[in-house]
């Protein structure tokens, strides 16, 4: 069953074209690594899929709903964790979960129970009544991650979910994502950490300059390009080049 269907998706900011005709289908129960260089349009795609940006052309369906026509139905069923999101720092995590759970029409008892379990799993510890403004970047990221999972969404969009996390936390989040797919959830995430993307993604979609330039399992993509690692593959397909050893930016001065 397809949980995401995108056809001929175009998006522009003023005269600058960001997405140039994306066609994509994603099946349920997969972890999709959505990668690409800075400015390729990853966050824009995720915002559109999450029903936050209606200024596009083309057809976008999420979980069977047209995102433009039924954003509310989509938002009920998805989880969205944006990149470097702002958060109500004057609240405690519990109060923030209460807010998000309430917005998702979730009874407080369930919100509380799920938040506690997720906090324990992600090893998020803080003293009682501690406000988010006292948290480190990684702790805030965990609060965001938990808030996006509280309503047990079928499809989860994560924009750079590993940013700011320490090595142990990265391992826990990776495990969590895998467990979610075992429960039939679909994960659609963007990341710049190629090593992680290569290891945990069932499928990798590479975006460059607003177009999909590769789409498949790592083995499938690698079979075409023979790059050996996702990092090399990324560099090859996005027009980057390996570091030059003779580069000296002060040359000819």
């Amino acid at each position, binding site marked *: 069953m397809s949980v995401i269907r995108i056809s001929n998706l175009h998006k522009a900011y003023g005269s600058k074209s960001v997405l140039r005709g994306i066609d994509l289908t994603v099946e349920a129960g997969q972890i999709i690594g959505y990668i690409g260089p800075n400015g390729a349009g990853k*966050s*824009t795609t995720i*915002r559109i899929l*999450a029903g*936050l*940006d209606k200024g596009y052309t083309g057809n976008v369906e999420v979980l069977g709903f047209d995102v433009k026509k039924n954003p*509310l139905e989509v*938002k*009920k*069923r998805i989880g*969205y964790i*944006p990149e470097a*999101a*702002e*958060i*109500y*720092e*004057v*609240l*405690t995590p*519990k*109060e923030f979960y*209460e*807010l*998000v*759970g*309430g*917005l*998702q*029409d*979730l*009874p*407080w008892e*369930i919100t509380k129970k799920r938040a506690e379990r997720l906090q324990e799993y992600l090893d998020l510890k803080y*003293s*009682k*009544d*501690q*406000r988010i*403004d*006292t*948290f*480190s970047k990684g*702790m805030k990221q965990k609060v965001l991650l938990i*808030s996006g999972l*509280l*309503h*047990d*969404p079928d499809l989860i969009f994560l924009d750079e979910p590993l940013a700011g996390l320490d090595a142990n936390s990265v391992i826990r989040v990776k495990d969590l994502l895998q467990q979610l797919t075992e429960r039939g959830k679909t994960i659609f995430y963007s990341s710049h950490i190629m090593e992680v993307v290569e290891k945990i993604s069932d499928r990798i979609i590479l975006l460059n300059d607003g177009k999909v330039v590769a789409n498949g399992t790592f083995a499938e993509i690698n079979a075409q390009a023979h790059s050996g690692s996702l990092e090399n593959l990324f560099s090859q397909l996005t027009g980057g080049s390996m570091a030059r050893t003779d580069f000296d930016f002060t040359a000819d001065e």
Partner: protein
Amino acid sequence: MLVSLLNPVWRRLGADPKAIRLILSAKLKIDDRAGMMMGQRQKKKKGMEYLTYVFISLFGTCLVYLFILMEHTATAVGLGFSMWVCYIGLMLITEMSENLFDQRDLYVLLSRPINDLTLSISRILHIAVFASKFGLCLGTPSFIYLLVAVGPWAAFVYFLLSILTIIITMTGTLVFYLVLLRRVESSKVKKIVGYFQIVATFIFFIAYQLPSLMGDVQALEGLELVGQPMGFSFPGLWVGGLFEAMTTSSASVLAYAQGLLALLAAGGGLWYYVDQSQGYADRLLQLRHGGTEEAPEQNMTGGAPVGRSPVRDFLAEWLTRPNQERMSFRFHWNVMLRDMTFKQRTYPTLVYLPVILGITIFRDVFKGEEEFSIGDGMMLTLLYFLLWLLIIPLGQTKVSEDYRASWIFKATANSYPGRINYGQFMAVLGMFYLPMAVLVYTAVLIYWGPSHWIDVLMAMGTTLLFGLVYSQLDQALPFSRSKEDSKFENIGPFLLVGVLGTLFGFGHWGLQHISYLLPAVTVVVWAILLTWVWYMRRGEDLGAAAGAK
């Protein structure tokens, strides 16, 4: 370009002129631009800014009245500049404090090879640009008056003294902050500044009302402060002394002394500011660490438990149903109680009307026309004043320094926006309206008599109804608007409801004189109110949560 003219001075002082120009240019651009949210630009803030300047110019025009009213021009100049000192000083405190403690300076500017002096000069120039805009609006009417009525020399001196007044005000304010930064524990500075801003705004508002009393105080006509011992009491009057010394040949010794004091205040203030700028960066860094995980214990709102509030929980249970309504109530209550921006913008405005009321009574008593102050007019004014206690905080629940965090309301399903609005309304009602309503209603029933219960009921229904109308008109998400985004369409609903509510108050006065009409209209108002509340709260039964099994 004007700043570049002083490049030799900056260089001589040991600062980097190029860096000063670059920093100033960047800061002015930042001032001019609104923020981003969810990848989209917030609306421009120009409209409101121009409106503010129009109001300040009107205030400046009122100051001309001082020259017309008073025989002693130097005292008029001194009093006018005293108003400047209050006005600009408090504008600096209320609007520019964040600029002084801008943490971005730490990473963007202080990580570059610039010294403390360069940063300090660019900061004071930035503030000078801000203050000069107000100075221009305040001073132009008086300048024109002096040019026409007194002569070009007096006008030219007035122009020079305007610059001096701005310097005195700026350095006075900045020195206050520098002392605060050096003497007070880092973790407490922001809190102290926040509360100081609240008090300062309150004082500013009272000072702003004083010119309205001038028309009634004829005693000002022969008042002479400059050149007298009282002329030493306030910096604005020192500048008046300098005006006297520069424009007349008969200035007294005291006037010369006051003029000298003004020059010393400006020069001394600048010297102290430059002298104290050393080490500013270190203190800013400490201030930054006052808000991170490195100081978790200090940041627990002074150790007070933040999660528990019996009043909030009691009211939440009493006024709202579980889930969305209660969540919204608790969320708004918590943020209103903790967000410094909200406090700074809301608390002072809540005293505006009592101050106007106080001034009205004072004027009535002064003129021997206190009939209004003790009559039904005052009773209705008090009853309808409660409307402002609803719509002022309601309006501010749309605004926040943390406005970017409201992405959560866009990203979640939020199937019942009416319930969120209801929770928001009730939180404001519980925190601001209820306590004052109990006081006002009790006072009315005791002072004017229990027979006025119908007036209380009518006014209560009307104020709540107009509060709901306002809530409906301004549909912005909770705390989703940047405080810079004060464009006219944002305050439009506020003005509309404020005016309509006041008109309804007059209507109420009219209804008192027609038998049976007041009870009938009261029934209609309450019927509309209750229907509206039902409509807001309607929806499917609870427990329809996605993912709730």
